[in-house]
């Protein structure tokens, strides 16, 4: 069952065609990897889906309903949440307060929000750090905070934009574990990543975007062997990688 349907999505910024008749579906419960070279349109795609920009053409259907004209906060209320390429926690306040803002998406009662915040913090293993100012956290904790804040909004679909940027191998593995944990909770994920090893390890399905258009999609082991993908982005190095 497709939770997100993208049909013929097109977006121009002046002379630059960021999204070129993009079409694919995201199935409920899967982790979809979105890969492609820099400037391919991956972040633009997230921006258009979450209402930051309006598309010039095409359809965006979330659970069958059109969300093209909604504002970012409405889209969050519908159940789509996104994280940012450069982590953007609310720096001057504590971890707990950061997640509270996410919790308030589903309730206006402070007490309920506090309980939910505690649950999410425990789930993301941030409970011990609840009273630390967000700016003082290290990168992996800031990433966890970003996830926690998004999770607190009870999303059905989570869009992660290059979450593993700047993480070392151990931290990457921790992030992969968290992403899978979030999926097991019933959240569908679309993950943009340049870290191929990570994507190959977590993604059920991969879509490859180059210059705003989809050049390939399919199972990870098929995508890494596709000739177009190898030429445009990956190179030969991944053809022989042992996949899950």
């Amino acid at each position: 069952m497709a939770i997100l349907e993208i049909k013929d999505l097109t977006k121009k910024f002046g002379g630059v065609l960021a999204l070129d008749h993009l079409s694919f579906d995201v199935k409920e419960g899967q982790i979809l990897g979105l890969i492609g070279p820099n400037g391919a349109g991956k972040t633009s795609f997230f921006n258009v889906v979450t209402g930051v920009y309006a598309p010039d053409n095409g359809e965006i259907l979330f659970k069958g309903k059109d969300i093209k004209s909604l504002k970012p906060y409405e889209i969050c209320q519908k159940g789509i949440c996104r994280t940012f390429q450069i982590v953007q926690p609310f720096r001057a306040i504590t971890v707990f307060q950061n997640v509270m803002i996410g919790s308030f998406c589903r309730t206006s009662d402070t007490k309920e929000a506090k309980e939910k915040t505690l649950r999410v913090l425990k789930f993301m293993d941030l409970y011990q750090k609840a009273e630390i100012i967000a700016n003082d956290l290290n990168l992996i904790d800031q990433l966890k905070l970003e996830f926690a804040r998004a999770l607190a909004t009870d999303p059905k679909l989570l869009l992660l934009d290059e979450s593993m940027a700047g993480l070392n191998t151990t931290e990457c593995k921790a992030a992969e574990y968290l992403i899978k944990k979030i999926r097991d909770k019933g959240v569908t994920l679309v993950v943009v990543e340049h870290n191929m090893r990570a994507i190959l390890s977590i993604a059920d399905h991969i879509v490859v975007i180059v210059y705003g258009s989809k050049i390939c999609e399919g199972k990870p082991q098929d995508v890494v062997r596709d000739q177009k993908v190898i030429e445009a982005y990956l190179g030969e190095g991944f053809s022989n990688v042992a996949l899950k």
Partner: protein
Amino acid sequence: MKVVKIRNKKLVCPKIYLFLAIFILLFVLPLYLPQYYIHLLTMIFIFAVAAEAWNIIGGYGGQFSLGHAAYFGVGAYTSTMLFHYFNISPWIGLLLGGIVAVLLSIGISHLCFRLRGPYFVISTIALAETLRYLFINQRWITFGARGMNIRYIGNAPLYFQFSGKLPYYYIALLTMLIVVFVTYKIINSRLGYYLIALGQNQDSAEAIGVNSFKVKLIDLCVSAFFTSIAGTLYAQYIYFIDPDAVFGLSLSVQIMLFAVVGGIGTLWGPIIGTFVLQIASEWASATFGSGLMGFKFIIFGSILIIIVLSGKKGIIDIFTTLYYRLLQTEQKQL
């Protein structure tokens, strides 16, 4: 977290006793003070209402307004004109003034919230100045620069007029406490958290469900409402208003200054700031008299410079830092 809670308990006790002591003092004191000091305190309370209301949108909301006199003046003129022309009790005028201020703020929000930074500030100045000129020019109804008097009808509590100073004192004090309570409620509610988020990072906030326009709008409405109430209180206490006094830029700046010097974005900051600056200005007037007109602005400026140089966010911040430093010393001795 347990350690923090225990520490908090230690901190909470002295704070509450301090506040209780001050409250009792404020309620009992006027019975023993000379008229001048009652007047001084009443004026402080009235301006503190305006400063605390400003803080709701200027401090917590992050929308730095230099035109809050617009709402102050709306409150003052609404109640005064309704009383003058239709003999409507200023108590009702108080509420109606608040409603007009809220409607005005809704209209302004749609025009000005898309503006960022200094452009928003300029638009707030423009609003107050526009109203000031409007009220100066529409002499036929507002009496223009000549101003309006509140008709003296003796002791008439139902018409917000009292023969002594004490009733005004207590009304102003009560109103001030109400605004502080409202601010406290906002801070701990969803609105308060959303305001903080917006102030930190608007895009991030919208991505997790914050309707930035609606949040800022509600915030400004609350702020405008209470600022307008301060305006009505002022009019009823002083018995005279004119466009320069209640719509003037210097009033807007003063309100902002009280909040900023006291502690922008804090609960008690604007109150403390009003006390400090008003007392300093009265002291300056008393000491230097008419020899140095406008000296109070030099005082204001000097205090502001000291605050800014201290690197702290106002008097409250300075005292909080000292307080924690003192506590640490005590703990070491234990």
